[in-house]
């Protein structure tokens, strides 16, 4: 099983046969246990039996999880349902049984440990504590923070409920742990807007030279401010002394097997996941270097048919097994979301405002 391997340990020749065997088994499993999925496979891939390469696998438009409740387990085995708000405001519903939830957590830990080390580190969270307290209005942000909290200890929230910096807590944290390795986590926009920018405006710096900052959640708002990844990293270094900064990409529809950015600024597939880029319209796979829509493949989803999803993100595949960072596997760039289809329908005069998508 791929989950027994280290996150970045397999080259294509080693990985693809294992990946295909597991994905074919998953496809069959979902065909047998999720009848809408079976309907789709028969309708769109009538000749499908097994895939000889991952490009032949059926794929599901990710927004279907907003529109339909898709599960491959009986109701009695449902352990929990994950919700996320998306751009249309309708949440995705991801049905987990206990086994799938456990594997997701296990794999998330495995990937995180690659970047953070095995020991639990003191953890600085760039958010306010209220974000996980309000259970009735539990956001994707809250879920992401909670999901990663067990990777750390001595948790400290850097912000107050009004998004100002809690300098007292921050300074105490830096004093106590600043000399050693620490884990800093936050959503990309929160880190930029409410932490780095505030430190800069108030002409304050902190010193966390051995920290690792992991951040996620999309670049749209930063792009609007013309902030790119290198500007982001430079500013983080200036204000906090953190030089190890890694963005990661993932979605609630495929929790666990996340894609973390390496030192070269490339998002990497872990052993348990893969990506393809497809050209809109023909939906054929695009070559390396060619822009298209990202298809996400993961061996983890067993309780819902989410092992092969067509995302709404534009991306470009950069290569496989040849990233200068040395990690094997495919690596890629996210170019942003597909623009919202222009509102021209008779049925959309009255439309809820779009929300920013957040991803754990």
């Amino acid at each position, binding site marked *: 099983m791929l989950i027994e391997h280290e996150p970045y340990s397999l080259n294509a020749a080693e990985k693809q046969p294992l990946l295909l065997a597991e994905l074919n088994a998953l496809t069959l499993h979902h065909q047998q246990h999720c009848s*809408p*999925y079976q*309907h*789709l496979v*028969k*309708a*769109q891939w*009538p000749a499908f039996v097994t895939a000889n390469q991952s490009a032949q696998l059926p794929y*599901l*438009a990710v*927004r*279907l999880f907003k*529109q*339909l409740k*898709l599960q491959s387990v009986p109701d009695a085995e449902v352990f929990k349902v994950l919700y996320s708000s998306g751009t249309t405001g309708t949440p995705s519903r991801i049905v987990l049984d206990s086994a799938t939830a456990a594997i997701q957590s296990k794999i998330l830990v495995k990937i995180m440990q690659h970047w953070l080390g095995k020991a639990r580190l003191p953890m600085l969270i760039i958010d306010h504590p209220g974000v996980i307290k309000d259970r009735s209005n539990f956001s994707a942000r809250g879920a992401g923070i909670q999901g990663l909290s067990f990777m750390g200890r001595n948790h400290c929230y850097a912000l107050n409920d009004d998004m100002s910096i809690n300098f007292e807590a921050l300074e105490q944290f830096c004093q106590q742990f600043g000399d050693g390795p620490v884990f800093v986590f936050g959503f990309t926009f929160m880190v930029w807007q409410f932490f780095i920018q505030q430190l800069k405006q108030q002409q304050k710096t902190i010193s966390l030279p051995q920290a690792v900052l992991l951040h996620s959640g999309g670049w749209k708002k930063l792009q609007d401010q013309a902030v790119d990844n290198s500007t982001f990293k430079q500013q983080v270094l200036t204000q906090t002394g953190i030089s190890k900064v890694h963005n990661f990409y993932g979605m609630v529809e495929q929790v666990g097997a996340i894609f973390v950015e390496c030192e070269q600024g490339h998002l990497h597939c872990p052993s348990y996941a893969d990506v393809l880029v497809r050209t*809109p*319209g*023909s*939906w054929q796979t695009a070559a390396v270097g060619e822009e298209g*829509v990202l298809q996400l493949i993961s061996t983890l989803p067993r309780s819902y048919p989410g092992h092969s999803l*067509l995302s*709404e993100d*534009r991306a470009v595949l950069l290569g496989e097994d040849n990233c200068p960072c040395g990690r094997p596997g495919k690596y890629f760039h996210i170019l942003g979301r*597909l*623009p*919202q*289809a*222009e*509102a*021209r*329908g*008779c*049925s*959309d*005069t*009255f*439309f809820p405002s779009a929300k920013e998508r957040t991803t754990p």
Partner: protein
Amino acid sequence: MSWIILNPPTIKAELQQPFAEQDFAYCQALSEALLKAPQSRDFPDLIALGFWLRQANLKPLLAPYQHSQHFIRQPLGLVFHSAPANVDSLFVYSGILSLLCGNKNVIRLSSRSGGSTAVLIEKIRALAELFPAQNARFQLVQCSYDSAELKALISTVNGRVLWGSDQAIQAQRQLTMPAHARELSFGHKFSLCLVGAEAVLATNHEQLQQLVQLFYRDQLTFAQQGCSSAKAVLWLGEAAQVQQAQQRFWPALTELIEHKQPLNSSEQYQALATAQQLIMSSEQQLMLTQQHSISRVAVNTLEPVFIDQHQGCGLFLELQLSDLTQLNPMLTQAHQTLTVWGVEPGLLKNWLTTAHTGIDRVMPVGQALSFSPDWDGVNLIEQFSRKVVSTF
């Protein structure tokens, strides 16, 4: 949001005699402004509107509604129009017909309106000085549904016209209008295209090209977003014949689409995602065929869920019919325009008399988007005016 008047009046609005020369002149001036505007080239809907607004088009269109010896036509009064955000220029059609009926009009534009609306607003503003009376009777506003000004206005109207989604219409119905006032509502609709398989098989190359051009104009000018653009293609003929006709028709259409590229990547995604949604939520086992950016889903019946779920953007449901009456139990009030190609008129007419539910309008393929005073089974001229019957 506050209440914003986009073309403020310079004089007080007064009701007018229906079909007044000055009102036609206003339409003619707007027509010329639109057809001359360089920006119109980017918006086919503005060109179509420009042609529709010509006096030479409007006068014959309205001639049948002139006074007769049995009645005198008078305006309805103050009419409120709520425009949809989609086919941007749609509001002008009903607004102008109401203006020509002599009414005072207030037109609420969506704040999300697209580029062609901006051009229209600019042209309408530019005419205010030359046509102060018409401008005052054709007021464009932007406001939220809960604005106090809107509420006050609605409480004094003689009629209102609500375009848009079913939700938007219900939301606007919360505002009370006077007991005597009329309401016209044009909610969510689903249109169909009927094609005779035998006729398609009998076409030569040129005739086939003409058919796909007309079909393209109806369906892809607005990425299938106009309510009269067909979302389902009904093939009349025996199964084998239909299959042959499809094999002739779709490659010709996709070739044209390849050439014109009418759909952007988001729309292409939308078509695929919607096709998958329909397939996964249907009780039937549907079949999907993808050809370039066109997705086709073969169905055995038109399920009511298709009406809400189908988002267009290059997605066509296909249904084979051996006999037109098979369609009757599938039709609902939401089925609006039926565009037809290659079906014998006698056969069509006989069948139409049996279809008591659904279908407001039957047009040749190529004319789905043309506007007529009869819309969704309602005559707008009659609704925007009062017939004063006089036996003297």
